[in-house]
């Protein structure tokens, strides 16, 4: 009990630390003192502009999207009973991406208007991809086949990204640039309207998933045990899956094609804090936020003035971790 509280508190402070580092990092340097002054309303106009209009919204997006992806991965790993599952691997992110690119190619005028609309579209795309992957890996007698789930996910993601390439090649030069940046996973919507677009999704869905923590505990056992614990497995699986898709799709719609966070964060959380979802869920969310914000900060810091997209940094950390988990897994 005590250990769990300590871990969650520690993670919270870790996030705070990343936030402070991130606030001070960027093309124009600001010392911690200047940041504090500006936050208190005593900075210069330029400092206020940088902090309030660029850095703060971008950080909040990174935190929200990171938490969303981590929660999504946590749910998917539990439902599929596969420690290697994550929203990227299951085609959800790519499906969301296809919808976003499709929208851009059909309505090339508006990259600014659809702040509230893009997450919604991305949700539909992600849900369709997830439905396809789950449908293809479901057998009537045997239920969900975890091994095939992963293979199908890899294949569907490959097919969808091919589709996305076709669509994006037809875009105008400017929109192609926008799409390309989006696809490699860069936090492009660094403005307050995107924060307001994302925040309710993440908060509401987190509340819902947290409310279902005990159900998730039950679902992590095999089907018979879960049923024995009084859980109607199929119904809960679908509800939670919908929540996972929504979390991933909303995050991806603003942060772009970022993979691996949904894999790493729940994994680390479980190693730190055990298997109970009441603790794993918030720990995953905090870790996911730290990871994405950290990756975005590192990406901005290392190769100034050019900027490495957060998605690339995450993949460089995430892929080796994935391989490590894969090498340790028994099947």
């Amino acid at each position: 009990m005590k250990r769990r509280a300590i871990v969650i508190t520690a993670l919270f402070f870790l996030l705070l630390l990343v936030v402070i580092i991130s606030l001070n990092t960027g093309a124009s340097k600001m010392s911690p003192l200047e940041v504090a002054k500006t936050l208190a309303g005593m900075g210069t106009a330029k400092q206020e502009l940088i902090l309030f209009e660029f850095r703060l919204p971008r950080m909040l997006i990174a935190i929200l999207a990171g938490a969303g992806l981590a929660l999504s991965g946590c749910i998917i790993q539990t439902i599929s009973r596969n420690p290697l599952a994550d929203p990227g691997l299951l085609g959800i992110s790519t499906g969301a991406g296809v919808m976003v690119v499709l929208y851009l190619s059909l309505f090339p005028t508006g990259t600014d208007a659809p702040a509230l609309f893009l997450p919604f579209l991305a949700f539909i795309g992600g849900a369709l991809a997830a439905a396809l992957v789950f449908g293809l890996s479901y057998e009537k007698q045997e239920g969900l086949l975890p091994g095939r789930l992963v293979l199908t996910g890899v294949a569907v993601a490959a097919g969808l990204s091919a589709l996305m390439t076709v669509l994006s090649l037809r875009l105008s030069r400017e929109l192609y640039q926008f799409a390309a940046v989006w696809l490699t996973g860069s936090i492009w919507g660094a403005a307050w309207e995107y924060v307001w677009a994302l925040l309710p999704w993440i908060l509401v869905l987190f509340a819902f998933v947290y409310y279902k923590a005990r159900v998730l505990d039950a679902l992590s056992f095999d089907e018979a045990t879960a049923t024995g614990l009084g859980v109607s497995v199929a119904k809960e699986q679908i509800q939670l899956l919908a929540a996972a898709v929504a979390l991933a799709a909303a995050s991806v719609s603003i942060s772009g094609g970022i993979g691996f966070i949904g894999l790493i964060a729940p994994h680390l959380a479980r190693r730190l804090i055990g298997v109970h979802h009441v603790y794993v869920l918030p720990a995953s969310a905090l870790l996911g936020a730290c990871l994405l914000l950290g990756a975005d900060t590192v990406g901005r810091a290392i190769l100034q003035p050019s900027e490495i997209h957060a998605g690339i940094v995450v993949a460089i950390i995430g892929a080796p971790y994935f391989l490590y988990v894969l090498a340790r897994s028994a099947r």
Partner: protein
Amino acid sequence: MEIEKHIKRSSRSWAAILVLVVGLSAILFSIALSISVGAADIRLTTVWDAVFHYDSRQTAHAIIRDLRLPRSLADVLVGASFAVAGAIMQGMTRNPLADAGLLGLNAGSTLMVAICFAFFPGLSYQSLIIWSFFGAAAAAGMVYGVSALSRGGVTPIRLVLAGAAVSALFTSLSEGIAIHFQLSQELAFWYAGGVAGVKWSQLKLLAPWIVAALVAALLLSRSITILSFGEEVATGLGQKTKIVKLMGAMIVLVLAGGAVSAVGPIGFVGLIVPHLARFFVGVDYRLVIPCSAVLGSLLMLWADIGARMIHPPYETPIGVLFALIGVPFFLYVSRKRKGEFA
């Protein structure tokens, strides 16, 4: 011997001869067709003349000689390379889902090409090919190493997963390099450009490598057949499996690395074609490998023609076309062999 009989019983040499004869004539016809289709429509008789009665004053002849012909020949070489590399991998790893794209080899080559573009911009094409091999080798080593280190050893699922992760890693690194050195456009051009930009000079450098590797594959084919029945069977029959595997891996790297260095990472050719070949001719790799080469060339030629006709005057990237055909095929294979992937 029991296994020899089994191989004989479940192979069809007559089908192989049929595939080779029909396939080769289809290739010749498709080359002619491929040359005549494009931004400038050219009649087949002109194609004939350009090849056999070349007249440097005619633009059509020049287009054929300088652009269309190398492109078609590149299709043939590259298609055969990816297909044979896939066949060898599927035979050696006993993994029906093996393919240069899925197992990360293409991403490894791409990373090396990106590194060469960024740090050694004046590099000759010959060196680029060799570095591309090393990239493919590094990726293959990682994918296989991680799978082999796991408890329970190498399984098809593990190979595919490790391939996906290594691909993601190498692709990200390539993108990072491309963004930092502002090479995005060059790399994207190379990446999606496919066979359009292949020149004679490249072909001359590439062809010896690929032909040599294809011949080596044929020489190794009997051992691969035996290996495809499992390592224990092969060892029981007195095969030095380590040497066969090493040779096979080298051939795969030359084929996949060379092909990627010429036309960029094209996946799924190596997945589909060996399945088709085995469907026609059975389990003997002495037949599967030559038939894969022919069918791979043919598929590549058709895909290239298709890529030019879908959305003229733009060319649809050929890798995209293959993904759109290959993904349903992958799903079909993984469903059919339910037991292995449950």
